[in-house]
């Protein structure tokens, strides 16, 4: 039997200046799973986390975390959750041990219990040696581990991680993933994380919600989402981008539904992709469209993202920076 750890219903929030951050976002996270919210910056992931962790309030909508109403009983929710915000919340002037001890005291822990818990977390997150050094001397990975330890001090039921591996080296990221997995297996925690890394959502999360424009456009296990896309993914890179629309029209006659243009690449899905490629190339060649490269693969989470949002995650990220 599964129980719901986080339930968000129709969350809406608009910031001053008519910036719509959330536009009816709903999601549900089951107990004991790693749930990933995937989307570009500005999609509404951080706003969702802020609302679910009682930091901010929605204009409308409802949310329950660990069975408690977020809007009605924020203090009860606070006792049940751990939060690791984007960036770091570490006090750089204090030592790792002082950071942890203060965090514990705020939750009412003290004396022997607190000391033991601090030692245990320092050990577990490999910070024992650095425990009595100011946190500003820590590396990025160490700071992140201290952040997670801070979120874990009071043994919460649900842990929120906002962009846990952004800005970390690849090896450190893999290490973080392992650590997050163990929080679920060893501590029975439920983890809700946000990410704009496709591979992170794919490999770390049990279930994923694709967030776009303040709403969830698709939700499910990565494998299930991928197998919802029929056939193989065929990406055809054209020599001349101007021909993209014409190529799409031609391709939609010979391939399965859902042919889309992504810059000078046309994305199509075909049953039995490898056999279909010669036919596709002949057809395009007959229409006078020259092809630079063709790849055939099993649909990736990126294809799922593209299917539901009409753009690749990379393009969405770039659009955000403009």
């Amino acid at each position, binding site marked *: 039997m599964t129980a719901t750890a986080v339930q968000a219903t129709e969350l809406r929030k608009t910031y001053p200046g008519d910036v719509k951050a959330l536009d009816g976002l709903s999601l549900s996270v089951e107990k004991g799973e790693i749930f990933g919210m995937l989307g570009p910056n500005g999609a509404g992931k951080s706003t969702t986390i802020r609302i679910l962790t009682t*930091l*901010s309030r929605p204009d409308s909508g409802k949310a329950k975390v660990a069975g408690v109403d977020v809007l009605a009983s924020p203090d009860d929710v606070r006792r049940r959750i751990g939060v690791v915000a984007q960036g770091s919340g570490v006090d*750089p002037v*204090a030592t790792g041990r002082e950071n942890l001890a*203060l965090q514990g005291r*705020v*939750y009412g822990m003290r004396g022997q219990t607190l000391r033991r818990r601090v030692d245990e977390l320092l050990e577990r997150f490999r910070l024992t040696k650095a425990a009595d050094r100011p946190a500003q001397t820590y590396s990025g990975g160490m700071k992140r581990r201290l952040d997670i330890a801070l979120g874990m001090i009071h043994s919460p039921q649900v842990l929120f991680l906002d962009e846990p591996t952004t800005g970390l080296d690849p090896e450190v990221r893999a290490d973080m993933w392992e650590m997050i997995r163990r929080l679920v297996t060893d501590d029975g925690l439920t983890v809700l994380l946000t990410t704009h890394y496709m591979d992170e959502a794919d490999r770390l999360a049990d279930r994923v919600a694709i967030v776009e424009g303040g709403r969830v456009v698709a939700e499910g296990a990565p494998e299930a989402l991928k197998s919802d896309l029929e056939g193989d993914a065929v990406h055809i890179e054209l020599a001349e981008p101007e021909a993209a629309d014409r190529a799409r029209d031609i391709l939609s006659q010979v391939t399965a539904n859902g042919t889309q243009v992504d810059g000078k690449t046309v994305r199509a899905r075909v049953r039995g992709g490898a056999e279909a490629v010669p036919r596709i190339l002949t057809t395009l060649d007959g229409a006078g469209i020259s092809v630079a490269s063709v790849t055939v693969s099993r649909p990736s989470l990126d294809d799922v993202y593209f299917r539901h949002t009409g753009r690749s995650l990379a393009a969405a990220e770039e659009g955000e920076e403009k």
Partner: protein
Amino acid sequence: MTAIAHAGYMTGRHLRALARQPWYIAFTLLQPLIYLLIFGALFEKASLIPGFGSDSYITFLTPGVLVMSALFTAVWNGMNILEDMKRGTLDRFLVTPVWRGALIAGPIANAAVSSLVQAGVIFGVGTLLGADYEGGIAGVTVLILASLLLTAPFAAFSNAVALTARQEETMIGLANFVALPLTFLASGFMPLDLAPNWIQTAAKFNPVNWALEAGREALSAAPDWGVIGIRLGLLVVVGTVLFTLATSAFRSYQRSI
């Protein structure tokens, strides 16, 4: 009880941070001494003006510099919370069940301790330069108490501004805009008897002047404790109001994020 405990934890955090910044401490101590030396030399002959009321300018100036230093420490206090905001430390505390007031009380206590250390050094150097008070230890204690009671409302105000404006530029502008006029619309550097009427009137509503009047009265040969009590009481009232205001500013901050 929880509230007091939380305030204690946050105070401890700020004091530990303060103790780790020896250069900051050195500068906060050096600055008032420079004022003491420069103003003391510049206005030395002011005590010769008829009606000045004291025959030693350094005796008159020392409480003025002490209260001014407390005010300046207080108006910049919001920088602490602004920095916590930038680092994400503030948000980390706000998603815990910590008492919101503790997040204001911590930095205020930090300012109070800074002011206390400053006061000790200012008095010591003032005395070396020849300042002399008939009110003795009791007088000095009241003056320092008054300057601490002045720290609280202005530090709370500074935190409220930081939480509402969330910008260093606004903080800097407002700190200067508030601190300088309030410093000089009071009897810190010149007796009000020698000031124009409008300044005398403005000073009546100036908390900086309340602190100075309470202190100067206590330092005199025969203090009127009623005068002192009213001034200190007013400072407590203003402090309580502004503390409540600063604590409720968290709501406006959280609405905006």
